[in-house]
């Protein structure tokens, strides 16, 4: 790690102000940024710690409306009774991110802002039509995730919360990379008044995407058997030593089936 200036912001406005100086980066849980700095792949001049800002942590559930503040840890998301009551798929997803250390440090805002193509939250946000709230505006999840590690965030723009309406039924299932244990394919299925939405993480060559083949099959019948014989194309899926595009395409369907089974259980 190169030397770096550490700032602990007290407020969103202070953090935003600090972000204008040098080559500063926001620091939330640091689960990606700190390892990248330790291996010298990232070298910000300043780190602005967001995890001590009042009001930037916590979960609010009102009816079906859910707001999760950006610096809420994966552990807190996984353990929220109020959230589980309306959207158990989300608490379940959070309970399987990384390991206990990661879940106690990593935050939803940090994960969403980083948009690692193998992260879990992007699938949930896209499938549930969530809104990413920043210090400047609100961005629909469908517009937020723009590519591998790329988002609609502008320079210095800070995520403050994620909000969504809990779907009627939802489920998430992932297949882990054997080495890193990140999602090699993760599928979030959500059924609501607006229909069925299915988002896939870990597999797309430009990040999270919706699978129209699976959505249309599940729109007819929201059941695992509705996916029997369904295939998805592999041509825009990632291929690496752990999984070819064809294998990932297969896993998308298998994980979708299992996610639906969870959703309807």
């Amino acid at each position: 790690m190169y030397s770096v200036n550490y700032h602990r912001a007290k407020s969103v406005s202070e953090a935003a102000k600090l972000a204008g100086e040098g080559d500063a980066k926001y620091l939330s849980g640091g689960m990606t940024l700190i390892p990248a700095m330790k291996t010298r792949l990232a070298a910000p001049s300043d780190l602005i710690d967001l995890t001590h800002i009042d009001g930037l942590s916590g979960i609010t559930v009102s009816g079906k409306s859910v707001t999760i503040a950006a610096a809420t840890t994966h552990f807190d998301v996984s353990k929220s009774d109020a959230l589980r009551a309306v959207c158990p798929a989300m608490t379940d997803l959070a309970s399987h991110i990384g390991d206990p250390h990661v879940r106690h440090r990593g935050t939803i805002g940090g994960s969403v802002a980083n948009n690692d193509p193998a992260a879990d939250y992007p699938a949930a946000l896209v499938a549930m039509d969530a809104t990413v709230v920043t210090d400047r505006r609100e961005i629909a999840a469908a517009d937020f995730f723009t590519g591998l590690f790329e988002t609609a965030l502008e320079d210095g723009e800070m995520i403050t919360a994620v909000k969504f309406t809990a779907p009627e039924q939802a489920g998430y299932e992932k297949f882990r990379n054997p080495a890193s244990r990140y999602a090699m394919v993760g599928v979030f299925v959500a059924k609501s008044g607006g229909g069925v939405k299915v988002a896939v993480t870990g597999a797309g060559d430009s990040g999270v995407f919706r699978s129209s083949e699976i959505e249309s099959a599940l729109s007819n019948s929201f059941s695992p058997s509705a996916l029997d014989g369904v295939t998805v194309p592999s041509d825009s899926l990632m291929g690496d030593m752990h999984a070819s595009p064809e294998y990932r395409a297969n896993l998308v369907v298998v994980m979708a089936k299992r996610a639906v089974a969870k959703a309807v259980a």
Partner: protein
Amino acid sequence: MGIEGIGARVARKEDKRFITGGGRYTDDMVVPGMKHAVFVRSPHAHADIKGIDVAAAKAMPGVIAALTGKELKADGVGNLICGWMIHSKDGTPMKMGAWSPLAVDRVRYVGDAVVIVIADTKAQARDAAEAVEVTYEELKAVTDVVSALKSDAPQLHPEADGNLIFDWEIGDSKATDEALAKAAHITKMHIINNRLVPNAMEPRATLGHYDKAEDHYTCWTTSQNPHVARLVMSAFYNIAPENKLRVIAPDVGGGFGSKIFIYPEEVVCLWASKKSGVPVKWVADRTESFLTDAHGRDHVSEVQMAFDKDNHIIGLKVDTIANLGAYMSLFSSSVPTYLYATLLSGQYNIPAIHANVRTVYTNTAPVDAYRGAGRPEATYLVERTMETAARELGVSPADLRRQNFVTQFPHQTPVIMAYDAGDYAASLDAAMKASDYAGFEERRAAAKKNGKLRGIGMSNYIEACGIAPSAAVGSLGAGVGLWESAEVRVNAVGTIEVLTGSHSHGQGHETTFAQLVNQRFGVPIDSVSIVHGDTDKVQMGMGTYGSRSGAVGMSAIVKALDKVESKAKKIAAHLMEADEGDIVIENGELKVAGTDKTVPWFQLALAAYTAHNLPAGMEPGLKETAFYDPSNFTFPAGCYICEVEIDPGTGVTEIIQFVAADDFGNIINPMIVEGQVHGGIAQGIGQAMLEGAYYDAESGQLITASYMDYTMPRADDLPSFQVSTSNTPCPGNPLGIKGCGEAGAIGSPPAVINAITDAIGNNDLLMPATPQRVWAAINAAKH
């Protein structure tokens, strides 16, 4: 058996310091004035060095020195060598290319050391290392053995035409060809043994300290054999004569073979300490470990196993190409030859065997011994072939093995080894019973109803341990003898220090060696200290590898204990006015048999040192040394059975049960032996299902250079193992020990792959059998 003697499940003495953070590793060592080193390493797999500019680096804050290979050569530091000479079948010696500890003109793998930068802090050294400018002219790289032997392949070393290091053979080619010609059935296989990264928990580290006043060097290092390190650095690398070089290997956090070898860093840090005038410490980070620790395995083989009409094996022909990486590491040549091809007879009567082995240079990290070293490669080849043959012949895999087992001992194989003792059917029976092999088809049918594929596979391994008779290995090309030494020092109050050339880096010697002393003299193990890992304390030793510490290291201790006992009995006889032959040692006392006359052990020791009343002419003191040179290898063997269940939708394999039935000879501490077996099986399952080191074929970059891509086995990848032993004592050493350190890693991979291929009905499956590969193989079998 006493509560602390041979056979007792004594808790490990050393664990208290390890699990409370009290271990003292090389990185914990601090000497006054010590500075920190970072190596500038090649980012290219193959390139000519056109220039090195260290001026900017030297001007950085805290920097003391930035030294190059040219300076190292100018000071006469020698090239790194391989210490085991192999001759090709045409009689020519192996073609060893030059390996300068710091590359001078050319780099040959990603991670090749080029410059050492020394600074007040490691961070400063790292910053300065980035400021070193090395101008490279990139060359084409080759990373796999088949490509390396092609006529248009990039050439690594001028000494080795066509990248071929040696083309060696063993066995009887003519007899084997005749067997193949008259065979009723031949099973043919193409076997790839995947490349592995050792991944010791403690990364390699070294601290080199040159003391100008004494003109003396001290090297702290992560070594499994500090005396060998000193010998090699003195005799070949011109660091200093042995009396001017002390090597200390303190607590070492695992080695698995990778810490046998002398690496560039030890040599360079010692030299740099004199050159720069400061003690120099280097500690690898994890990526450096991936890039530069000697890797393991990486064989490609063609196999033909011939059977007569009654399913007796009549011949085995093997053609192997082994990857030795960019340079020949210290014992690299012995691994795919005498540690591999000599085990190709397995547990079987095979009248004719011939193996041809070619070793090649590639632009990859050096490859050398890794847990099992050659024997896992032999076992995987033989045991996959046996299982495949059984399927082709339509007979039970167990029956085919049983009918071909060696049952008469000693047994001379056609490939050097003379098996001394064993009962292979006993292990097979034990494993089949423990795994309910007979009930498997019912379980397979039940799994099928749940949409799962079940399979079962076995592996009947044999290995050669207790390495090794010095004259025998000398005749085969070894540059060293493989005896061991011991010194037993009884203190004046009866406590005992045992100095041993074996090195403990996870094996539990501080406990098991003390158990041996307890067994002999009744001294509590807390009163016995095991001293090792320091060339100034221990006279000489060959270190720990090849499951040799019990069979060879403890045998040396037995010899020293024998001498101590003999002298103690003389003194006791003198003190009690009895005949020496009537003295017995029981419960910590020396007694005159059949009387109530006794001398407690501590009193006897005191008498030896006060020397007021010793037999006439006897020297005072009670301290003896011994060297032990084994008469033969030892031959641990066993049967492993693996049962798997596979999800055809994802290719995920779950190990339902894993049974190990081993024959380790006599056992000192069953708990420690079980721990060794557990760890070995974990590594074997790792090789079979999880681990694989991959280089990009074009760029020569190591793709699996971190745990993000290299799959280390984790607890949830593994089942609870069912381990047992049915032991036949080894006749070749005084304790009847065969050794247990490598068996798990040797025996388990073929059992796993035989089980998976049985489940999916497709024998075309590579290790590691990842979910993707298993899924693909299932689908390929459908078409």
